[in-house]
C-alpha cells in the first residue's frame, strides 16, 4: 500500500497546474454557477479546455477523450478544484455524450459528439416529470411512432438550464402495455422543434436554474432515437451509474472549507476571531474529519477502478456523504456571517455596492440553494435504498 503518487503522476499534476495557471481567465476564478449570467459565461472555461483537448477526459480517445487513466482524471479534477475553475456542465459531456458513444449509431456519433465537445450544442436532461421523481421509471411523456418520426406529448421538470439548451435528451414512454421499465425509449430532441415550451421555475433563493419543459405534438425523427425502442431504461441506468468518482466533490469541498475558515477568521466574537472560539473551531474540525473520511473512501474506490474494477453500488456513499458535507459547509458559513446572512443579495444591482462584508454576500442564498443536493441525482433516501438492497442484500 502506498499513499504517494508516482513521479509520472506528479509530473502530470505539474503540467495540469501550469496549464490552468496560464489559461484560466482571471475574471472567472472562483466564480460559482450563480455568478454566471449568460451562455458565454458558462462556456468560457469549457472553450479553453476544448482548445486544449481536455474537455472530456472521460471519453475514449477515438471520440475526443484524453486517454488519461483514472488517477490522471482524479488529479485533473483536483487541480481544477484547487484553482477554483468553473465546472464543465455535465449534461452534454458527462451524461449524453457517453450514452451516444456507447449506444448510439455511427451517424449519431458523427453528428452529436463533436458539437458536444466544442460546446456548440448545449444539452439539457429530460428525465424527471411532475409525477416521476425518485420513481423515475414511471415517466409518462408519451412518444407515438408515426411513420418516420415520433409524436411526443407530455412534460419534463427540474430541467437544469433548459433556457439555454439546443438539445434535450429525454426518457419517453413508447409502450404502455408492459412493465414500466420495458416501455421507455431514449430520444434526442431539438429544442427548436415546434411544440416545445420552456417555463422557468424560480427556486427559493431567487435563482432561475431549473425549468418545466412542455411537449405538445412535437415531431422527433426516428433517427434521433438512441439504440432500440423500449430499451431506454438500460441506457438511462447506464448514465446514472456512469463515472461515480468525482461525485463526492472532495477537492471542491476542501476549497470551500478553506473559504469558510477565512470567513471565520475575519468574523469576530468579543474581538476574537470566530475561528478561534471553542464552538466554531470544533465544528470546523469535525467537518474536516468528515471530509477526510470521505476522501479516503473515494481514494479506495479510485484504487479499485484503477485496477479495472467498476465502482459498485457502494459508490452511493460518495453521493450521500459528499452532498451532506457540501450542505454542512454552507450551513456553517451562514452561522459564521451572523446578521449579514439577512440581506437578500439579488436585490443589489450590478453597479450597486452590496451591504456587509463581500464574503457574506449570497451565502444564505447558497445555503438555501444547496438543499437541492440531497434531492437531485437520486435523493439521498434513494441512495440509501440502493445500498440497503444492492450492498447489504436487505
Amino acid at each position, binding site marked *: 500500500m502506498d499513499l504517494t503518487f508516482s513521479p509520472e503522476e506528479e509530473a502530470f499534476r505539474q503540467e495540469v497546474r501550469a496549464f490552468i495557471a496560464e489559461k484560466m481567465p482571471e475574471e472567472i476564478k472562483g466564480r460559482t454557477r450563480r455568478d454566471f449570467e449568460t451562455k458565454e459565461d458558462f462556456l468560457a472555461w469549457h472553450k479553453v479546455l476544448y482548445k486544449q483537448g481536455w474537455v472530456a477526459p472521460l471519453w475514449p480517445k477515438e471520440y475526443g477523450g484524453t486517454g488519461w487513466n483514472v488517477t490522471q482524471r482524479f488529479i485533473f479534477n483536483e487541480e481544477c478544484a484547487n484553482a477554483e475553475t468553473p465546472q464543465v456542465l455535465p449534461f452534454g459531456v458527462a451524461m449524453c455524450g457517453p450514452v451516444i458513444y456507447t449506444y448510439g449509431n455511427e451517424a449519431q456519433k458523427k453528428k452529436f459528439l463533436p458539437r458536444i465537445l466544442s460546446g456548440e450544442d448545449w444539452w439539457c436532461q429530460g428525465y*424527471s416529470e411532475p*409525477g*416521476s*421523481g*425518485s*420513481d423515475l421509471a*414511471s415517466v409518462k411523456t408519451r412518444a407515438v411512432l408515426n411513420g418516420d418520426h415520433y409524436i411526443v406529448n407530455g412534460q419534463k*421538470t*427540474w430541467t437544469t438550464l433548459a433556457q439555454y439548451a439546443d438539445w434535450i435528451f429525454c426518457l419517453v414512454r413508447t409502450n404502455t402495455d408492459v412493465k414500466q421499465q420495458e416501455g421507455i425509449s431514449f430520444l434526442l430532441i431539438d429544442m427548436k422543434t415546434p411544440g416545445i415550451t420552456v417555463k422557468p*421555475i*424560480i*427556486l*427559493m*433563493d*431567487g435563482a432561475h436554474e*431549473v425549468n418545466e419543459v412542455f411537449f405538445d405534438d412535437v415531431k422527433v425523427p426516428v433517427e434521433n432515437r438512441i439504440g432500440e425502442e423500449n430499451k431506454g431504461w438500460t441506457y438511462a441506468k447506464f448514465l446514472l451509474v456512469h463515472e461515480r468518482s468525482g461525485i463526492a466533490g472532495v477537492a471542491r469541498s476542501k476549497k470551500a472549507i478553506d473559504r469558510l475558515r477565512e470567513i471565520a477568521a475575519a*468574523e*469576530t*466574537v*468579543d*474581538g476574537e476571531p*470566530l475561528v478561534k*472560539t471553542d*464552538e*466554531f473551531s470544533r465544528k470546523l474540525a469535525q467537518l474536516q474529519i468528515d471530509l477526510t473520511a470521505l476522501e479516503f473512501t473515494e481514494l479506495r474506490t479510485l484504487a479499485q477502478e484503477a485496477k479495472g474494477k467498476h465502482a459498485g453500488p457502494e459508490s452511493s456513499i460518495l453521493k450521500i456523504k459528499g452532498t451532506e458535507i457540501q450542505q454542512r459547509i454552507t*450551513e456553517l458559513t*451562514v*452561522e459564521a456571517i*451572523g*446578521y*449579514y*446572512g*439577512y*440581506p*437578500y443579495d439579488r*436585490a*443589489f444591482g450590478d453597479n450597486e455596492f452590496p*451591504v*456587509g*462584508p463581500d464574503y457574506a454576500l449570497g451565502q*444564505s*442564498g447558497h*445555503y*438555501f*440553494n444547496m*438543499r*437541492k443536493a*440531497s*434531492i*437531485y441525482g437520486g*435523493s439521498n*433516501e434513494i441512495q*440509501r435504498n440502493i445500498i440497503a438492497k444492492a450492498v447489504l442484500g436487505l
Partner: protein
Amino acid sequence: MDFSFTEEQTLLRNSVSKYLADKYDFETFKKISRSEAGWSKDNWKQFAELGLMAAPLPEEFGGLGGGPLDTMIVMEEFGRALVVEPFAQTVVVGGGFVKHGGTNAQKEEWLGKIAGGETAMAFAFAEAQGRYNFADLTTTAKKQGAGYVLNGAKAVVLGAPWADTLIVTARTAGGQRDAKGVSVFLVDKGAKGVTCRDYPTVDGLRASEITFENVEVPADALIGTADDGLKLIEQVTDEAIAAHCAEACGAMKSLLDTTVEYSKTRKQFGVPIGKFQVLQHRMVDMFINYEQSSSMALMVTLKLDESETERKKAASAAKVQIGKAGRFVGQNAVQVHGGMGMTDELNVGHYFKRLTMLDALYGNVDHHLKRYAQLS
C-alpha cells in the same frame, strides 16, 4: 398547575387567526413582501383595531393589560402566516423598553401610540463587529447640553424601512465592550444626520444599514438610566426572544402540517410517500422537535418575570432548542417535498428561510448555549 388559556386569550387567538386566514394567505404574504413598501400599513392599522398591539401593554397607558402570553399567542399565529409587519420590534421591543425603562412621561407618550398602531419602531442594536454581544458598541452618544449627540453605524436593522422611530443602543461611557456605559435612546428616524440604506432580507422582510452623524437628541430620548442600559436591553431582548420563539413555533407547525399532508398525497412507486417508514420516522422527529419547541416557547414565556438569572437561562434554553429544531424541521420539510420544496412557489421554502434567520436573531444556538452554560 394549569396550562389552559383564559377566555380572553382564546378570543385573542381566534380573532388573530381568523383575520390572517381571511386577509393574509400565502399569496398575500408574497404580494405584500414584494411590494414597493414591503409591508401593509393597512394591515398594521387593522392589527391595532383588533387590539393586538394593545393586548400585552398596561391598561393605565392605553393597553389591555395582558402580558407575555398574549404576545406569544399573536406571534405564534403571525409565524404561521409569515407576517412581515413589525409587531415584535414595535410592541415587544419598543413597548418593552418604554414599559420597563421609561419615565411616566415617556410611557404616556409612547405606549398609547404603540397600542393604537400610530407608530412603527425598529431596534438598532447590531454592529458589524459586535456579533451577538449587545455591549460591543462603537456607536457613541456624547452628552451635549441637556441632550446627547449620536455618532456611529448600525447593521441589519430589521423593519427600519417601515419605522418612524428607532431604538438605538450607544456607548455613553467606558471601553468598546464594557458592560457599564451602555445607554438606550429613542431616535426619530427623520432626525438630521440619520441616513438609512434600505434593502430586502432573504426571508421576505426589510432592513436598513443606518449611520448616525452628529444626530442631536433631547434629554428625554434616553430610556432608562444612562450608562446602565445593558440590563434593560437584556430584559427586553429576552422578552423578544420569547416572542420570536413563538413565531418560530408557528412556522414549524405550518411546515409540519404541510409536509405530513403532502406525504399523504404525493405518490411514488405506486404508494403515498408517507407510507415509507424512513419518511414516517423523519416526520415523527419533526413532530417531536416541534412539540419540544412549543414547550420551550411556553416555558420562557412563563418565566420572563422570574429572577434575572432564571429569565436569562429560560430565554437561552428556548433559543437553543428552537434554533436547532427550526433547522431540522425546515431542512426536512424541504427534503420530504423534494424538488417542490426548493421552489419559490411553495410556502415551504419561505418558512424554512424565516426559521433560518430567526436562529441568528438575538444570538444563535452557539451563543445561547454558551450563555446558558455561563449562567448555570
